[in-house]
């Protein structure tokens, strides 16, 4: 990778410019300078805007579903519409929101900054990936207009090969979106390998980057299987090739293997980046070195790897061989170990820290609460005999919402508040931030705790109509979901408000130590006007902050002062 000979670099301190005049936001003007930008920060914001849009669309659909479930049988929409809406809710939230959410929005913005690079390795590919994403979204929209899809986001055969809805165009949308995901993954891996600043060894990489690295690896290895799966599914409908459809000699369980070989690792594409954000938040707001750096970093990779061995735990009652169910169940539990290690490390990081309960930290603590529930209920449904009872019930629905929403979305919100001043140069209202976090935390539990109870009582999922005994819990859950929706609306309002009226943010409001905070807020067009040199780890809160401002002195720069150190 590099020349092995140690080089002596002349370095000096580069103080951060407060209230910068030239930033990436005003480097170029006009809508075209945004839509066709190759600046990773602007692409990150394009993604942020898109995922927010789709999050609200998906959320509205969810509220519609919850409203329908206020009463058994029909309340406002009919069964077919209900089926289409829960399919769209799942497909939009997964393919258009949560998979690109943290990596493509926050990752794009901060990955190059955190390693002191000017951009990702392939900026044009990065832009292409966003356009492909938009193109895929348009395809999804097209399939909604031409008859929607009612298969569930899992597209299980043979229902998906026989239903009258526009499955083919939806599968092509998924195919295209997968491509976008792959390009982001390639970009991240190459950037992390090849573009790190001097001194930024693997052991000094922020944990957010380790988690993005693990995520990118999963994206590379799993997404192609999704591509071939949906391609086969589309061919099944177009040509009737009969790999998956039993009426043509195919095997529907084989489809489930194909699907989950992607989709199980995909849940780690969704959650692993969240782990990274939480590591940053807990260390920064405890102002303390992270506990067990390597344990957290390597457990991300371990989760990524084990995640590929456990897909069959979605299929314990699918008719796969009992032998494979047993093997899958056994392997499944080993995802729990590295996940547990992370949680314990985060808690240990807070020990003897200097804990400041700012909004991002409140989200981090909410994450610990909700994600631990999500994880422990995961152990529950990994157990074979209990899974037989709980599979395909609301217990599963509650479990994955606790992991995906209580985990990923909460971490995303934490990260969004944490990096908001850096991205926009403005501070949001702290009080409203904390209130909203409280509202979301409480209403989230109101929405999904009852679903655990319904599930263990035997309420199957994807039910338009239900047995009367569940009505009370359903109504409680629906009311919770309304408050949850309200919480997100409040957040949207105060964040947008801060863009215009928020006070100007300093370059490092949280006194964090990782490299992105050493740039001005908002950052300059090329992030750093110098090549940063990294002397300390990203969590070395005991080191003076000026030692984090080191960079390579320009050759013409005569002021090369005291700090002249050797680095490899």
């Amino acid at each position, binding site marked *: 990778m590099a020349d092995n000979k140690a080089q002596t670099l002349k370095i000096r301190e580069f103080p951060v410019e407060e209230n910068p005049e030239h930033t990436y936001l005003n480097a170029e003007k006009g809508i075209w300078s945004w839509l066709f930008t190759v600046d990773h920060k602007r692409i990150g914001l394009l993604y942020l805007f898109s995922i927010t849009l789709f999050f609200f669309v998906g959320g509205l659909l969810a509220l519609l579903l919850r409203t329908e479930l206020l009463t058994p049988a029909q309340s406002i929409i009919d*069964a*077919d519409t209900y089926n289409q809406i829960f399919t769209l809710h799942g497909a939009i939230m997964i393919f258009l929101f949560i998979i690109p959410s943290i990596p493509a929005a926050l990752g794009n913005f901060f990955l190059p900054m955190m390693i002191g690079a000017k951009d990702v390795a392939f900026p044009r590919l990065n832009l292409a990936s966003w356009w492909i994403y938009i193109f895929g979204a348009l395809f999804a929209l097209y399939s909604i207009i031409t008859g929607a899809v*009612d298969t*569930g986001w899992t597209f*299980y055969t*043979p*229902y998906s090969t*026989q239903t009258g809805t526009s499955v083919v165009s939806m599968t092509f949308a998924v195919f295209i979106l997968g491509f976008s995901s792959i390009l982001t993954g390639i970009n991240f891996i190459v950037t992390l390998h090849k573009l790190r600043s001097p001194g930024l060894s693997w052991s000094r990489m922020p944990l957010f980057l380790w988690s993005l690295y693990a995520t990118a690896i999963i994206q590379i290895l799993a997404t192609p299987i999704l591509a071939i799966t949906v391609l086969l599914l589309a061919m099944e409908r177009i040509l009737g090739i009969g790999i998956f459809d*039993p009426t043509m000699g195919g*095997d*529907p369980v084989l489809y489930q293997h194909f699907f989950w070989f992607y989709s199980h690792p995909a849940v780690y594409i969704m959650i692993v980046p969240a782990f990274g954000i939480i590591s940053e938040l807990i260390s920064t707001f*405890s102002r*303390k*070195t992270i*506990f067990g750096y390597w*344990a957290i970093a390597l457990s991300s990779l371990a989760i990524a790897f084990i995640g590929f061995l456990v897909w069959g735990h979605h299929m*314990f*009652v699918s*008719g796969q061989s009992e032998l494979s*169910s047993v093997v899958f*169940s056994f392997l499944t*539990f*080993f995802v729990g*170990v590295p996940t547990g*290690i992370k*949680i*314990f490390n985060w*808690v*240990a990081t*807070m*020990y*003897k820290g*200097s*804990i*400041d309960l700012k909004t991002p930290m409140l989200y981090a603590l909410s994450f*610990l609460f909700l994600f*631990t*529930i999500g994880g*422990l209920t995961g*152990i*529950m449904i*990994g*157990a*074979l*005999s*209990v899974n*037989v*009872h709980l*599979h*395909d*019930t609301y217990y599963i629905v509650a479990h994955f919402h606790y992991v995906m929403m209580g985990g990923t979305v909460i971490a995303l919100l934490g990260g969004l508040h944490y990096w908001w001043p850096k991205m926009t140069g403005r501070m949001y209202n702290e009080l409203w931030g904390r209130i909203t976090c409280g509202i979301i935390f409480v209403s989230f539990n109101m929405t999904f705790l009852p679903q655990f109870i319904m599930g263990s009582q*035997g309420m*199957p*999922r*994807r*039910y338009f*109509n*239900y*047995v009367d005994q569940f009505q009370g819990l359903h109504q409680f859950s629906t009311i919770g979901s309304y408050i949850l929706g309200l919480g997100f609306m409040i957040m949207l309002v105060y964040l947008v408000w801060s863009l215009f009226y928020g006070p100007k943010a300093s370059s490092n409001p949280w006194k964090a130590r990782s490299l992105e905070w050493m740039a001005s807020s908002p950052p300059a067009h090329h992030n750093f006007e110098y090549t940063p040199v990294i002397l300390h780890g990203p969590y070395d809160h*005991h080191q003076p902050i000026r030692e984090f401002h080191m960079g390579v002195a320009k050759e013409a720069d005569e002021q090369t002062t005291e700090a002249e150190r050797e680095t490899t």
Partner: protein
Amino acid sequence: MNRIFEYLLPPQRSTVASEVDSLFTFINVTGFILFMGIMITILIFVIKYRRKSEDDVTPVITHNSILEVTWTVIPIILILIVFSWGFRGFLTLSTPPSNAYEINVTAAAWFWEFRYPDGGTTMNEVYVPVDRPVKFIMRSDDYLHSMYIPDFRVKMDVLPNRYTTAWFEATDTGQSLLFCAEYCGTGHSDMLATVHVLSGNDFEEWLETGLEVDEDMPLAELGEQTFTSAGCNACHTLDGTDRIGPSLAGLFGTDRELDDGSVVEADEDYLRRSLLDPQAEVTAGYPANMPSYAGRLNERQIDGLIAFIKELQDE
């Protein structure tokens, strides 16, 4: 404590239920202890180590091997316990006793059909003896379905291309609900059946009499009974509102416009053809997904249904 778990779970009405529930309880209790441990620790830390001033100095603690090994090993031990416990229950669930009473189950969009060893058939109702293992040998006519009886803690997908099996031994008499747990389209959430657990004598008696079609029952009344027992009500209403198929109210004698544009009168012959070969003449505006009832209904039941539909016309 017990009350909580009684609330959380459906009643235990099969032999495996207690085994499954004990693991459910174990994981919940251990999980709760772990969860509370973590949350209380966090709470203590947050209160005790609250930031006092902007100049707080924190100690550099990078790791602690003993602690880290501990919190790696203890979870491993716990998950091994949970795995083997779950495995044991799964072995029970997936090995039906050889003397089990076998019932053939066919799932189709959107009803359940049960065939008993001596040739009788019921739809959306299944009668089983208490304290005797019962094995379902299941197959689907179309999509994936899943046979789920919460009270018995059994669930198994029903596939179109091969047989899957599930078994249970009910422990007390009464009724339990059977759900379809694998999403299968429009009528998925209405694809329910009732499990009647009868005592040994009652079951024998039911086999003698219950399966026989009551020759004395008036045709229309038999039709009305068949309308629910055969699952027609999953798709057709009697009050004029549309569901998946057209409502049957006032249908008899009207002209039906078919999806190929032709028009037929809904007379007795048409109704019979619709039952036995539903795809041949599909009413315009409705999906062509009604299953064929050929071989599922006997002659008297078909006549009964026709009589019942005719009667709806008169009212």
